[in-house]
């Protein structure tokens, strides 16, 4: 192989590396900044320090802010609530759409597909009034329910796909033996689609954990019901001189569960996001 050919073979890799450079640089700076006194560009100024991580022990941005653990608990509860409800309701509905014949089934399925393509973010103004009417404005439950509702069409579609792929022999045997539909669903079918459930659960958890727009819109400020994203964002806006060190440390802290999924469920992630992604442009 000539030198010229070798250079040509390098071009695709060069494009790939350049294309992922911003995000790599961003992550590099995030880590650097949280452990250094100060940074200028990508250069550290001062010494290695752990002081930016003191937020783990005391409220980071002064009094009046809730402690990080309170906020982390809120975020976790919202994400966990969302995961459980989305998986449960999608699995129920997906099963019915895949296996039962009832009036309105076809219409509901088309509706699910339309809603899946429909940008739910345009309904935020209407949702605001629904939450107020239900007395759920400025509550974690309200935030969780809205996110569950918006995630529903995708979840149903995904779950129906998984149920369609399950052979119905076992199910038929169980039904003939006198099991009820609900028993069949829970004891026979759900165990066979565990990978699908895992995929939807991971997707729902990450979107609940990361969410900013919906918690920000339906809660007031960074109070006791704040989530990590709202907390972190509030922090950047309010103080005149942003304490970049603490902000990056809190940001890294928020990234921990996402990083775990990123490292351990790579195949699953690439699969989910082919069907699941529609938000965020």
């Amino acid at each position, binding site marked *: 192989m000539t030198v010229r050919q070798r250079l040509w073979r390098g071009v695709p890799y060069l494009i790939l590396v350049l294309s992922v450079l911003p995000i790599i640089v961003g992550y590099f700076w995030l880590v650097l900044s949280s452990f250094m006194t100060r940074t200028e560009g990508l250069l550290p100024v001062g010494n290695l320090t752990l002081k930016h991580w003191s937020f783990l022990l005391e409220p980071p941005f002064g009094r009046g802010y809730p402690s990080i653990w309170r906020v982390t608990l809120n975020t976790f509860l919202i994400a966990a609530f969302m995961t459980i409800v989305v998986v449960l309701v999608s699995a129920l509905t997906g099963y019915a759409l895949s296996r039962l014949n009832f009036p309105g089934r076809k219409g509901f399925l088309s509706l699910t597909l339309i809603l899946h393509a429909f940008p739910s973010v345009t309904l935020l103004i209407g949702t605001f009034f629904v939450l107020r009417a239900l007395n759920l404005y400025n509550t974690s439950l309200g935030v969780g329910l809205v996110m569950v509702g918006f995630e529903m069409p995708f979840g149903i579609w995904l779950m129906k796909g998984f149920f369609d792929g399950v052979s119905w022999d076992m199910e038929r045997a169980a039904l003939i033996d006198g099991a009820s539909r609900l028993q069949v669903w829970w004891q026979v079918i759900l165990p066979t689609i565990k990978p699908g459930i895992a995929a939807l659960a991971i997707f729902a958890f990450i979107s609940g954990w*990361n969410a900013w727009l919906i918690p920000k819109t339906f809660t007031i400020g960074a109070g006791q019901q704040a989530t990590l994203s709202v907390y972190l964002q509030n922090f950047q806006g309010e103080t005149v001189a942003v304490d970049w060190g603490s902000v990056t440390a809190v940001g890294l802290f928020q990234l921990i569960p*996402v990083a775990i999924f990123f490292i351990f469920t790579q195949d699953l992630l690439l699969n989910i996001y*082919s069907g699941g992604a529609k938000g965020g442009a």
Partner: protein
Amino acid sequence: MSVSNRRERGGVPSLSLREPFEQPSSIGAWLHSRRAAWAFMSPAVLLITLFFFIPVIVLLVLSLSDLKSANFGTFQWWLPTNWSLDNYSKIIGDRFISKFLGNTLFYVLTTLAIFNFGSALLIALITTHINRRAGFFFRLLWLLPRLTPSVVYILMWRRIAARAPHGILNQFLTLAGLGGGDNLLQTMPWVFVIIVNGLIGASFGLVIFTSAIEAIPRDYLTASKVDGASTLQTIRHVIVPMIRWPILFVLTFQTLSLLTSFEQILLLTGGGPGLFRTEVWALRAYHLALSTESGNTQWGYGAAWAVILVIIGVAAATIYMRVFKFDELVEEPKIDLI
């Protein structure tokens, strides 16, 4: 007709309403089967009613009223006597309407062309033509912007664009003797708005194109090579024609998604700098009706801006469903009558 009968016919257990089948023997059994269906369906029906149907209706009604923070609590926006189309004529007469329209078109088309479609296809082509593991690795890295919490992701970009000496890009520009070290979000906001959104959006097309390209039978590519086609010719004349449906799907889906997305713009520039420099249609609706900073919230007027996006959204989603033959996915269930 029994279940086993159906199996004998095709091997594939596909049953449809179009086939004749026995009606359940008693009314009790019929009711029973419906009850099961509703037990399974009711949670989803409730959620979709609460968070899709009612909001759409509320939004429509609001857009006909003049509800704002000044008359909130006293104004009966739900009474038809208080309805009019004033908000819509107000939109048409808005001093900045051409600005918002122009911004939206520019943002959607540029981001779509360069990233959500362009980069997605390019990266999909490259990562399917290099070493498999390396390809997988780079695709995974491309997922990072989407997986990163948006607040943290925007935090990184703010730092990348910040003024000297803090800004990362400015550090390199200064070293090279270029640029005055100003905050780049002030001097070139659109560049960042487009890159920031594009890097998130491209992963959607990337994953879909990748699986489409990998599904092309190897023989076709080999045949093309044997015939002496160069890599570029193979891409142009074999690969792209074979993935035209995924391409159409990504283009339409991402157009709608970009048209209604504003979270990253809100975080990055807030629609600025200055007066509406990067304010897109969806962000305008949000600012009018849901932003608490201004103190003068106009739910009615903001809702009218949102209704226009909802109409486009419903129309587009319905059309995709027909174009992409979603109807075929709506086949009859496999077993019901036992």
